[in-house]
Protein backbone atom coordinates (compact mmCIF):
# COMPACT_ATOMS: atom_id res chain seq x y z
CA UNK A 1 0.00 0.00 0.00
CA UNK A 2 1.23 3.44 -0.85
CA UNK A 3 0.17 5.10 2.37
CA UNK A 4 2.42 2.86 4.35
CA UNK A 5 5.42 4.39 6.06
CA UNK A 6 8.45 2.23 5.34
CA UNK A 7 9.61 0.49 8.45
CA UNK A 8 12.68 2.13 9.86
CA UNK A 9 14.22 -1.06 11.12
CA UNK A 10 14.48 -4.17 9.02
CA UNK A 11 14.31 -6.72 11.78
CA UNK A 12 11.41 -5.07 13.65
CA UNK A 13 8.80 -7.80 13.53
CA UNK A 14 6.03 -6.21 15.48
CA UNK A 15 5.41 -2.58 16.15
CA UNK A 16 2.48 -1.08 17.97
CA UNK A 17 2.05 2.65 18.25
CA UNK A 18 -0.22 4.57 20.57
CA UNK A 19 -2.83 1.90 20.95
CA UNK A 20 -6.06 3.05 22.57
CA UNK A 21 -8.99 0.87 23.44
CA UNK A 22 -12.14 1.65 25.34
CA UNK A 23 -15.27 -0.32 26.11
CA UNK A 24 -17.93 2.34 26.19
CA UNK A 25 -17.00 4.62 29.09
CA UNK A 26 -14.16 2.43 30.26
CA UNK A 27 -10.75 3.38 28.83
CA UNK A 28 -8.76 0.18 29.06
CA UNK A 29 -5.71 1.06 26.99
CA UNK A 30 -4.56 4.64 26.91
CA UNK A 31 -1.82 4.73 24.31
CA UNK A 32 0.34 1.65 24.51
CA UNK A 33 3.34 1.27 22.20
CA UNK A 34 5.68 -1.62 21.71
CA UNK A 35 8.35 -2.63 19.30
CA UNK A 36 9.79 -6.11 19.11
CA UNK A 37 12.58 -7.51 16.97
CA UNK A 38 13.12 -11.01 15.72
CA UNK A 39 14.06 -13.28 18.60
CA UNK A 40 12.77 -10.85 21.21
CA UNK A 41 10.93 -12.10 24.24
CA UNK A 42 8.78 -9.27 25.53
CA UNK A 43 7.01 -9.95 28.79
CA UNK A 44 4.12 -7.88 30.02
CA UNK A 45 3.41 -7.72 33.67
CA UNK A 46 0.80 -5.76 35.53
CA UNK A 47 -2.08 -5.98 37.90
CA UNK A 48 -5.26 -7.87 37.14
CA UNK A 49 -7.50 -5.74 34.97
CA UNK A 50 -4.72 -3.45 33.83
CA UNK A 51 -5.39 -4.30 30.18
CA UNK A 52 -2.76 -6.94 29.35
CA UNK A 53 -5.13 -9.39 27.68
CA UNK A 54 -6.87 -6.56 25.91
CA UNK A 55 -3.57 -5.42 24.48
CA UNK A 56 -2.72 -8.88 23.11
CA UNK A 57 -6.22 -9.23 21.71
CA UNK A 58 -5.90 -5.88 19.99
CA UNK A 59 -2.68 -6.94 18.30
CA UNK A 60 -4.39 -9.69 16.36
CA UNK A 61 -7.54 -7.61 16.02
CA UNK A 62 -9.86 -9.73 18.10
CA UNK A 63 -10.64 -6.44 19.76
CA UNK A 64 -10.71 -3.44 17.52
CA UNK A 65 -8.60 -0.59 18.88
CA UNK A 66 -10.11 2.85 19.27
CA UNK A 67 -6.94 4.41 17.93
CA UNK A 68 -3.39 3.45 17.15
CA UNK A 69 -1.24 1.67 14.65
CA UNK A 70 -0.16 -1.95 14.35
CA UNK A 71 2.66 -3.06 12.08
CA UNK A 72 3.81 -6.55 11.32
CA UNK A 73 7.11 -6.92 9.50
CA UNK A 74 6.90 -3.30 8.50
CA UNK A 75 3.41 -3.60 7.04
CA UNK A 76 0.70 -1.62 8.80
CA UNK A 77 -2.78 -2.96 9.35
CA UNK A 78 -5.08 -1.00 7.07
CA UNK A 79 -7.79 0.67 9.10
CA UNK A 80 -10.77 2.81 8.32
CA UNK A 81 -12.55 4.57 11.12
CA UNK A 82 -15.80 3.14 12.34
CA UNK A 83 -18.42 4.33 14.78
CA UNK A 84 -16.57 3.64 17.99
CA UNK A 85 -13.38 1.95 16.89
CA UNK A 86 -11.03 1.53 13.97
CA UNK A 87 -12.13 -1.09 11.50
CA UNK A 88 -9.69 -3.10 9.42
CA UNK A 89 -10.42 -2.42 5.78
CA UNK A 90 -8.57 -5.33 4.24
CA UNK A 91 -9.96 -8.71 5.28
CA UNK A 92 -7.31 -10.68 3.43
CA UNK A 93 -4.56 -8.79 5.16
CA UNK A 94 -6.10 -9.45 8.55
CA UNK A 95 -6.27 -13.18 7.83
CA UNK A 96 -2.69 -13.19 6.61
CA UNK A 97 -1.51 -11.32 9.70
CA UNK A 98 -3.39 -13.56 12.05
CA UNK A 99 -1.90 -16.67 10.52
CA UNK A 100 1.50 -15.25 11.44
CA UNK A 101 0.40 -14.24 14.93
CA UNK A 102 0.01 -17.28 17.13
CA UNK A 103 -2.17 -16.81 20.17
CA UNK A 104 -2.59 -18.75 23.37
CA UNK A 105 -5.69 -17.52 25.16
CA UNK A 106 -5.93 -17.00 28.86
CA UNK A 107 -9.06 -19.14 28.86
CA UNK A 108 -7.62 -21.62 26.33
CA UNK A 109 -10.65 -21.50 23.99
CA UNK A 110 -10.09 -24.99 22.69
CA UNK A 111 -12.68 -26.10 20.18
CA UNK A 112 -14.94 -28.32 22.18
CA UNK A 113 -16.15 -30.40 19.27
CA UNK A 114 -12.66 -31.49 18.28
CA UNK A 115 -10.18 -33.78 19.97
CA UNK A 116 -6.82 -32.45 21.01
CA UNK A 117 -5.28 -33.74 17.81
CA UNK A 118 -8.00 -32.20 15.66
CA UNK A 119 -7.54 -28.91 17.49
CA UNK A 120 -3.85 -28.96 16.75
CA UNK A 121 -3.97 -29.87 13.06
CA UNK A 122 -6.95 -27.66 12.26
CA UNK A 123 -4.89 -24.55 11.55
CA UNK A 124 -2.10 -26.16 9.54
CA UNK A 125 -4.55 -28.08 7.37
CA UNK A 126 -7.25 -25.46 6.94
CA UNK A 127 -5.27 -22.25 6.96
CA UNK A 128 -1.74 -23.17 5.96
CA UNK A 129 -3.09 -25.78 3.50
CA UNK A 130 -0.65 -28.41 4.65
CA UNK A 131 -1.40 -32.02 3.86
CA UNK A 132 -2.99 -33.89 6.69
CA UNK A 133 -0.06 -36.31 6.94
CA UNK A 134 2.39 -33.47 7.29
CA UNK A 135 0.23 -31.72 9.88
CA UNK A 136 -0.09 -34.95 11.86
CA UNK A 137 3.64 -35.37 11.90
CA UNK A 138 4.26 -31.88 13.24
CA UNK A 139 1.42 -32.32 15.72
CA UNK A 140 2.93 -35.53 17.02
CA UNK A 141 6.19 -33.76 17.73
CA UNK A 142 4.53 -30.87 19.47
CA UNK A 143 2.15 -33.00 21.51
CA UNK A 144 5.06 -35.12 22.67
CA UNK A 145 6.92 -31.98 23.61
CA UNK A 146 4.07 -30.75 25.86
CA UNK A 147 3.40 -34.25 27.17
CA UNK A 148 -0.05 -34.68 25.68
CA UNK A 149 0.54 -37.47 23.18
CA UNK A 150 -1.48 -39.88 25.28
CA UNK A 151 -4.44 -37.51 25.38
CA UNK A 152 -4.44 -36.77 21.66
CA UNK A 153 -7.80 -38.38 21.07
CA UNK A 154 -9.51 -36.87 24.10
CA UNK A 155 -12.04 -34.05 23.88
CA UNK A 156 -11.12 -30.88 25.83
CA UNK A 157 -14.06 -31.14 28.20
CA UNK A 158 -12.62 -34.32 29.66
CA UNK A 159 -9.16 -33.02 30.40
CA UNK A 160 -7.58 -31.38 33.41
CA UNK A 161 -6.89 -27.65 33.45
CA UNK A 162 -3.19 -28.08 32.79
CA UNK A 163 -3.82 -30.51 29.97
CA UNK A 164 -6.15 -28.05 28.31
CA UNK A 165 -3.62 -25.29 28.62
CA UNK A 166 -0.94 -27.44 27.04
CA UNK A 167 -3.30 -28.35 24.22
CA UNK A 168 -3.87 -24.65 23.62
CA UNK A 169 -0.14 -24.06 23.50
CA UNK A 170 0.29 -26.96 21.09
CA UNK A 171 -2.40 -25.57 18.84
CA UNK A 172 -0.65 -22.22 18.63
CA UNK A 173 2.77 -23.77 18.08
CA UNK A 174 1.51 -25.93 15.24
CA UNK A 175 0.88 -22.81 13.19
CA UNK A 176 4.61 -22.01 13.35
CA UNK A 177 3.85 -18.30 13.54
CA UNK A 178 6.53 -15.68 13.41
CA UNK A 179 5.08 -13.85 16.39
CA UNK A 180 3.58 -15.61 19.37
CA UNK A 181 1.17 -13.92 21.73
CA UNK A 182 0.97 -15.82 25.00
CA UNK A 183 -1.65 -14.83 27.56
CA UNK A 184 -0.51 -16.36 30.84
CA UNK A 185 0.44 -19.62 29.18
CA UNK A 186 1.59 -21.34 32.35
CA UNK A 187 -1.13 -20.29 34.78
CA UNK A 188 -2.57 -23.80 35.11
CA UNK A 189 0.70 -25.69 35.03
CA UNK A 190 2.73 -27.28 37.77
CA UNK A 191 6.31 -26.04 38.29
CA UNK A 192 7.84 -28.88 36.28
CA UNK A 193 5.69 -28.15 33.29
CA UNK A 194 6.16 -24.42 33.68
CA UNK A 195 9.86 -25.08 33.26
CA UNK A 196 9.19 -27.25 30.24
CA UNK A 197 6.99 -24.67 28.55
CA UNK A 198 9.32 -21.80 29.27
CA UNK A 199 12.09 -23.84 27.72
CA UNK A 200 9.99 -24.27 24.61
CA UNK A 201 9.35 -20.55 24.48
CA UNK A 202 13.00 -19.77 24.86
CA UNK A 203 13.98 -22.19 22.11
CA UNK A 204 11.44 -20.63 19.80
CA UNK A 205 12.94 -17.23 20.49
CA UNK A 206 16.32 -18.64 19.64
CA UNK A 207 14.90 -19.79 16.31
CA UNK A 208 14.25 -16.12 15.63
CA UNK A 209 10.57 -15.92 16.45
CA UNK A 210 9.17 -13.03 18.43
CA UNK A 211 7.39 -13.71 21.67
CA UNK A 212 5.04 -11.39 23.47
CA UNK A 213 3.97 -12.89 26.74
CA UNK A 214 1.68 -11.80 29.52
CA UNK A 215 2.79 -13.56 32.64
CA UNK A 216 2.79 -13.51 36.39
CA UNK A 217 5.96 -15.65 36.47
CA UNK A 218 8.33 -12.91 37.55
CA UNK A 219 11.20 -15.35 37.64
CA UNK A 220 10.76 -16.02 33.97
CA UNK A 221 10.28 -12.37 33.11
CA UNK A 222 13.51 -11.56 34.87
CA UNK A 223 15.61 -14.41 33.48
CA UNK A 224 14.54 -14.85 29.91
CA UNK A 225 12.91 -11.77 28.53
CA UNK A 226 14.73 -9.19 26.47
CA UNK A 227 12.23 -6.54 27.40
CA UNK A 228 9.75 -6.14 30.22
CA UNK A 229 6.70 -3.93 30.09
CA UNK A 230 4.86 -3.00 33.22
CA UNK A 231 1.31 -2.01 32.42
CA UNK A 232 -0.68 -0.02 34.92
CA UNK A 233 -4.28 0.99 34.27
CA UNK A 234 -3.77 1.00 30.53
CA UNK A 235 -0.54 2.91 30.51
CA UNK A 236 3.04 1.66 30.28
CA UNK A 237 4.48 2.73 33.59
CA UNK A 238 7.82 1.11 33.09
CA UNK A 239 9.54 -0.45 30.13
CA UNK A 240 13.04 -1.73 29.59
CA UNK A 241 15.39 -4.64 30.01
CA UNK A 242 14.52 -6.85 32.99
CA UNK A 243 17.45 -5.62 35.02
CA UNK A 244 16.09 -2.11 34.92
CA UNK A 245 12.43 -2.93 35.54
CA UNK A 246 13.11 -5.35 38.34
CA UNK A 247 16.08 -3.82 40.05
CA UNK A 248 15.83 -0.19 39.31
CA UNK A 249 12.32 0.86 38.39
CA UNK A 250 11.67 4.53 38.02
CA UNK A 251 7.98 4.24 38.77
CA UNK A 252 6.92 3.91 42.39
CA UNK A 253 3.95 1.73 41.41
CA UNK A 254 6.20 -0.65 39.52
CA UNK A 255 8.65 -0.92 42.36
CA UNK A 256 5.83 -1.89 44.67
CA UNK A 257 4.51 -4.42 42.19
CA UNK A 258 7.75 -6.26 41.53
CA UNK A 259 8.58 -6.27 45.20
CA UNK A 260 5.33 -7.96 46.05
CA UNK A 261 6.61 -11.22 44.62
CA UNK A 262 6.91 -13.16 47.79
Amino acid at each position, binding site marked *: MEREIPSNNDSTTLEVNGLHKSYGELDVLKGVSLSAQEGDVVTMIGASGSGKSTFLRCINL*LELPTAGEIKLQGEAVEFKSGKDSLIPSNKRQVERFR*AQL*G*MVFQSFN*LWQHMTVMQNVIEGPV*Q*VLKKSKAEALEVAEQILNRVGLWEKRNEY*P*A*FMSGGQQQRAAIARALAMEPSVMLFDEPTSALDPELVGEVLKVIQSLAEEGRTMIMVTHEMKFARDVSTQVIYLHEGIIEEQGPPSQVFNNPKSERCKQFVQSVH
Partner: protein
Amino acid sequence: MEHALEILSYNPPGWGGALLRGLASTLQIALGAYLLGLIIGFAGAFGKIYGGPILRGSLKVYTTIIRAIPELVLILLLFYAGGDLLNYILESMGFARVEINAVAAGIYVIGFVQGAYSIEVLRGAFLAVPAGQIEAAKAIGMSWWKCHTRVVIPAMLPFALPGLANLWLIATKETALLAVIGLSELALVTKQATGTTKSFFTLYMAAGALYLCVTLASNVIFGFIERHYRRGQPVQG
Protein backbone atom coordinates in the same frame (compact mmCIF):
# COMPACT_ATOMS: atom_id res chain seq x y z
CA MET B 1 -61.26 -54.33 10.87
CA GLU B 2 -62.01 -55.97 7.55
CA HIS B 3 -63.74 -52.80 6.58
CA ALA B 4 -60.64 -50.81 7.47
CA LEU B 5 -58.44 -53.03 5.35
CA GLU B 6 -60.80 -52.59 2.46
CA ILE B 7 -60.66 -48.81 2.75
CA LEU B 8 -56.90 -48.83 2.98
CA SER B 9 -56.15 -51.36 0.26
CA TYR B 10 -53.68 -50.13 -2.29
CA ASN B 11 -55.86 -50.26 -5.38
CA PRO B 12 -59.05 -48.28 -5.89
CA PRO B 13 -61.62 -48.23 -4.46
CA GLY B 14 -59.18 -48.64 -1.57
CA TRP B 15 -57.45 -45.38 -0.61
CA GLY B 16 -54.03 -46.80 0.31
CA GLY B 17 -52.38 -45.93 -2.98
CA ALA B 18 -53.86 -42.46 -3.05
CA LEU B 19 -52.64 -41.81 0.49
CA LEU B 20 -49.14 -42.93 -0.38
CA ARG B 21 -49.07 -40.75 -3.46
CA GLY B 22 -50.28 -37.89 -1.28
CA LEU B 23 -47.44 -38.60 1.12
CA ALA B 24 -44.91 -38.54 -1.69
CA SER B 25 -46.19 -35.19 -2.82
CA THR B 26 -46.15 -33.88 0.75
CA LEU B 27 -42.55 -34.96 1.21
CA GLN B 28 -41.47 -33.50 -2.09
CA ILE B 29 -42.89 -30.08 -1.29
CA ALA B 30 -41.84 -30.14 2.34
CA LEU B 31 -38.27 -31.08 1.51
CA GLY B 32 -37.96 -28.40 -1.11
CA ALA B 33 -39.48 -25.79 1.16
CA TYR B 34 -37.37 -26.84 4.13
CA LEU B 35 -34.14 -26.61 2.19
CA LEU B 36 -35.10 -23.24 0.79
CA GLY B 37 -35.96 -22.17 4.33
CA LEU B 38 -32.58 -23.32 5.59
CA ILE B 39 -30.76 -21.35 2.94
CA ILE B 40 -32.76 -18.24 3.78
CA GLY B 41 -32.24 -19.05 7.45
CA PHE B 42 -28.48 -19.19 7.34
CA ALA B 43 -28.18 -16.17 5.08
CA GLY B 44 -30.66 -14.20 7.16
CA ALA B 45 -29.19 -15.18 10.51
CA PHE B 46 -25.75 -14.06 9.47
CA GLY B 47 -27.28 -10.96 7.95
CA LYS B 48 -28.94 -10.18 11.27
CA ILE B 49 -25.71 -10.72 13.15
CA TYR B 50 -23.16 -9.13 10.89
CA GLY B 51 -25.26 -6.84 8.73
CA GLY B 52 -25.51 -3.12 8.85
CA PRO B 53 -28.53 -1.31 10.25
CA ILE B 54 -30.44 -1.36 6.97
CA LEU B 55 -30.01 -5.08 6.37
CA ARG B 56 -30.77 -5.87 10.00
CA GLY B 57 -33.84 -3.68 9.92
CA SER B 58 -35.24 -5.22 6.78
CA LEU B 59 -34.59 -8.73 8.08
CA LYS B 60 -36.41 -7.82 11.26
CA VAL B 61 -39.37 -6.67 9.24
CA TYR B 62 -39.22 -9.90 7.25
CA THR B 63 -39.10 -12.19 10.27
CA THR B 64 -41.81 -10.26 12.08
CA ILE B 65 -44.28 -9.89 9.27
CA ILE B 66 -43.81 -13.24 7.59
CA ARG B 67 -44.08 -15.11 10.84
CA ALA B 68 -47.08 -13.16 12.04
CA ILE B 69 -49.22 -13.37 8.92
CA PRO B 70 -51.17 -16.59 8.51
CA GLU B 71 -49.70 -18.82 5.81
CA LEU B 72 -53.02 -19.04 4.02
CA VAL B 73 -53.00 -15.31 3.51
CA LEU B 74 -49.49 -15.42 2.15
CA ILE B 75 -50.22 -18.30 -0.16
CA LEU B 76 -53.35 -16.68 -1.55
CA LEU B 77 -51.66 -13.34 -1.88
CA LEU B 78 -48.51 -14.62 -3.50
CA PHE B 79 -50.07 -17.20 -5.75
CA TYR B 80 -53.22 -15.46 -6.88
CA ALA B 81 -52.64 -11.78 -6.36
CA GLY B 82 -48.95 -12.15 -7.18
CA GLY B 83 -49.73 -14.19 -10.26
CA ASP B 84 -52.32 -11.67 -11.37
CA LEU B 85 -49.88 -8.86 -10.94
CA LEU B 86 -47.21 -10.71 -12.88
CA ASN B 87 -49.58 -11.46 -15.72
CA TYR B 88 -50.86 -7.92 -15.70
CA ILE B 89 -47.34 -6.66 -16.13
CA LEU B 90 -46.53 -9.25 -18.78
CA GLU B 91 -49.67 -8.48 -20.73
CA SER B 92 -49.19 -4.76 -20.59
CA MET B 93 -45.71 -5.31 -21.99
CA GLY B 94 -47.12 -7.41 -24.77
CA PHE B 95 -46.07 -10.83 -23.53
CA ALA B 96 -48.27 -13.87 -23.13
CA ARG B 97 -49.76 -14.87 -19.78
CA VAL B 98 -47.88 -17.46 -17.81
CA GLU B 99 -49.29 -20.11 -15.54
CA ILE B 100 -47.41 -20.33 -12.29
CA ASN B 101 -46.54 -23.90 -11.47
CA ALA B 102 -48.40 -24.81 -8.30
CA VAL B 103 -45.71 -27.11 -6.91
CA ALA B 104 -43.00 -24.53 -7.42
CA ALA B 105 -45.23 -21.84 -5.96
CA GLY B 106 -45.96 -24.05 -2.97
CA ILE B 107 -42.30 -24.69 -2.34
CA TYR B 108 -41.45 -21.01 -2.63
CA VAL B 109 -44.22 -19.83 -0.36
CA ILE B 110 -43.65 -22.37 2.40
CA GLY B 111 -39.90 -22.06 2.04
CA PHE B 112 -40.24 -18.31 2.34
CA VAL B 113 -42.21 -18.72 5.56
CA GLN B 114 -39.88 -21.39 6.93
CA GLY B 115 -36.98 -19.07 6.24
CA ALA B 116 -38.34 -16.52 8.69
CA TYR B 117 -38.47 -19.10 11.46
CA SER B 118 -35.10 -20.61 10.54
CA ILE B 119 -33.44 -17.23 10.75
CA GLU B 120 -34.45 -16.83 14.35
CA VAL B 121 -33.60 -20.40 15.34
CA LEU B 122 -30.15 -20.09 13.82
CA ARG B 123 -29.57 -16.63 15.19
CA GLY B 124 -30.29 -17.87 18.70
CA ALA B 125 -27.99 -20.82 18.22
CA PHE B 126 -25.23 -18.62 16.91
CA LEU B 127 -25.42 -16.36 19.94
CA ALA B 128 -25.22 -19.39 22.21
CA VAL B 129 -21.76 -20.29 20.91
CA PRO B 130 -19.14 -19.08 23.40
CA ALA B 131 -17.31 -16.12 21.91
CA GLY B 132 -13.96 -17.70 22.72
CA GLN B 133 -14.56 -20.56 20.27
CA ILE B 134 -14.93 -18.11 17.43
CA GLU B 135 -12.05 -15.96 18.56
CA ALA B 136 -9.75 -18.97 18.50
CA ALA B 137 -10.72 -19.61 14.90
CA LYS B 138 -10.13 -16.03 13.90
CA ALA B 139 -6.85 -15.95 15.75
CA ILE B 140 -5.28 -18.62 13.55
CA GLY B 141 -6.20 -16.62 10.48
CA MET B 142 -9.22 -18.54 9.27
CA SER B 143 -11.20 -16.77 6.61
CA TRP B 144 -14.81 -15.86 7.34
CA TRP B 145 -16.00 -18.89 5.43
CA LYS B 146 -13.58 -21.33 7.04
CA CYS B 147 -14.31 -19.95 10.46
CA HIS B 148 -17.99 -20.59 9.99
CA THR B 149 -17.87 -23.97 8.34
CA ARG B 150 -15.21 -25.39 10.63
CA VAL B 151 -16.10 -23.89 13.98
CA VAL B 152 -19.20 -21.72 14.21
CA ILE B 153 -21.68 -24.00 12.49
CA PRO B 154 -20.52 -27.22 14.17
CA ALA B 155 -20.67 -25.44 17.51
CA MET B 156 -24.07 -23.87 16.95
CA LEU B 157 -25.85 -26.85 15.44
CA PRO B 158 -26.50 -28.62 18.76
CA PHE B 159 -28.41 -25.53 19.87
CA ALA B 160 -30.24 -25.21 16.58
CA LEU B 161 -31.16 -28.80 15.79
CA PRO B 162 -34.20 -29.21 18.04
CA GLY B 163 -35.71 -26.05 16.60
CA LEU B 164 -34.78 -27.04 13.06
CA ALA B 165 -36.27 -30.49 13.55
CA ASN B 166 -39.50 -28.88 14.69
CA LEU B 167 -39.53 -26.71 11.59
CA TRP B 168 -39.09 -29.73 9.35
CA LEU B 169 -41.99 -31.52 10.98
CA ILE B 170 -44.10 -28.40 10.68
CA ALA B 171 -43.18 -28.15 7.01
CA THR B 172 -44.52 -31.64 6.37
CA LYS B 173 -47.84 -30.54 7.81
CA GLU B 174 -47.94 -27.06 6.40
CA THR B 175 -48.18 -28.51 2.90
CA ALA B 176 -51.84 -29.11 3.69
CA LEU B 177 -52.44 -25.42 3.09
CA LEU B 178 -51.46 -25.82 -0.52
CA ALA B 179 -54.83 -27.39 -1.26
CA VAL B 180 -56.02 -23.83 -1.86
CA ILE B 181 -53.80 -23.56 -4.89
CA GLY B 182 -54.89 -26.92 -6.20
CA LEU B 183 -52.11 -29.14 -4.89
CA SER B 184 -53.04 -32.58 -3.77
CA GLU B 185 -51.09 -33.94 -0.84
CA LEU B 186 -51.60 -36.24 2.10
CA ALA B 187 -53.96 -34.05 4.12
CA LEU B 188 -56.25 -33.29 1.19
CA VAL B 189 -56.34 -36.90 0.05
CA THR B 190 -57.29 -37.89 3.59
CA LYS B 191 -60.08 -35.33 3.58
CA GLN B 192 -61.37 -36.58 0.24
CA ALA B 193 -61.23 -40.15 1.46
CA THR B 194 -63.22 -39.34 4.58
CA GLY B 195 -65.68 -37.38 2.51
CA THR B 196 -66.36 -40.42 0.42
CA THR B 197 -66.11 -43.26 2.90
CA LYS B 198 -67.08 -41.43 6.10
CA SER B 199 -64.58 -43.68 7.88
CA PHE B 200 -62.99 -40.89 9.82
CA PHE B 201 -61.31 -42.97 12.44
CA THR B 202 -59.64 -45.43 10.08
CA LEU B 203 -58.41 -42.79 7.69
CA TYR B 204 -57.21 -40.32 10.28
CA MET B 205 -55.36 -43.11 12.01
CA ALA B 206 -53.80 -44.17 8.75
CA ALA B 207 -52.75 -40.64 7.87
CA GLY B 208 -51.49 -40.12 11.41
CA ALA B 209 -49.44 -43.29 11.13
CA LEU B 210 -47.88 -42.11 7.88
CA TYR B 211 -46.94 -38.76 9.42
CA LEU B 212 -45.61 -40.58 12.43
CA CYS B 213 -43.40 -42.77 10.26
CA VAL B 214 -41.96 -39.66 8.68
CA THR B 215 -41.30 -38.30 12.17
CA LEU B 216 -39.64 -41.46 13.37
CA ALA B 217 -37.35 -41.46 10.36
CA SER B 218 -36.60 -37.76 10.91
CA ASN B 219 -35.86 -38.47 14.57
CA VAL B 220 -33.24 -40.99 13.56
CA ILE B 221 -31.59 -38.60 11.14
CA PHE B 222 -31.72 -35.53 13.37
CA GLY B 223 -30.65 -37.61 16.35
CA PHE B 224 -27.64 -38.84 14.44
CA ILE B 225 -26.62 -35.34 13.40
CA GLU B 226 -27.11 -34.00 16.90
CA ARG B 227 -25.05 -36.74 18.52
CA HIS B 228 -22.35 -36.12 15.98
CA TYR B 229 -22.14 -32.43 16.73
CA ARG B 230 -22.48 -32.88 20.47
CA ARG B 231 -19.41 -35.07 20.59
CA GLY B 232 -17.05 -33.88 23.24
CA GLN B 233 -19.81 -32.25 25.25
CA PRO B 234 -20.15 -33.68 28.77
CA VAL B 235 -23.59 -34.62 30.05
CA GLN B 236 -24.83 -32.54 32.93
CA GLY B 237 -27.21 -35.03 34.59
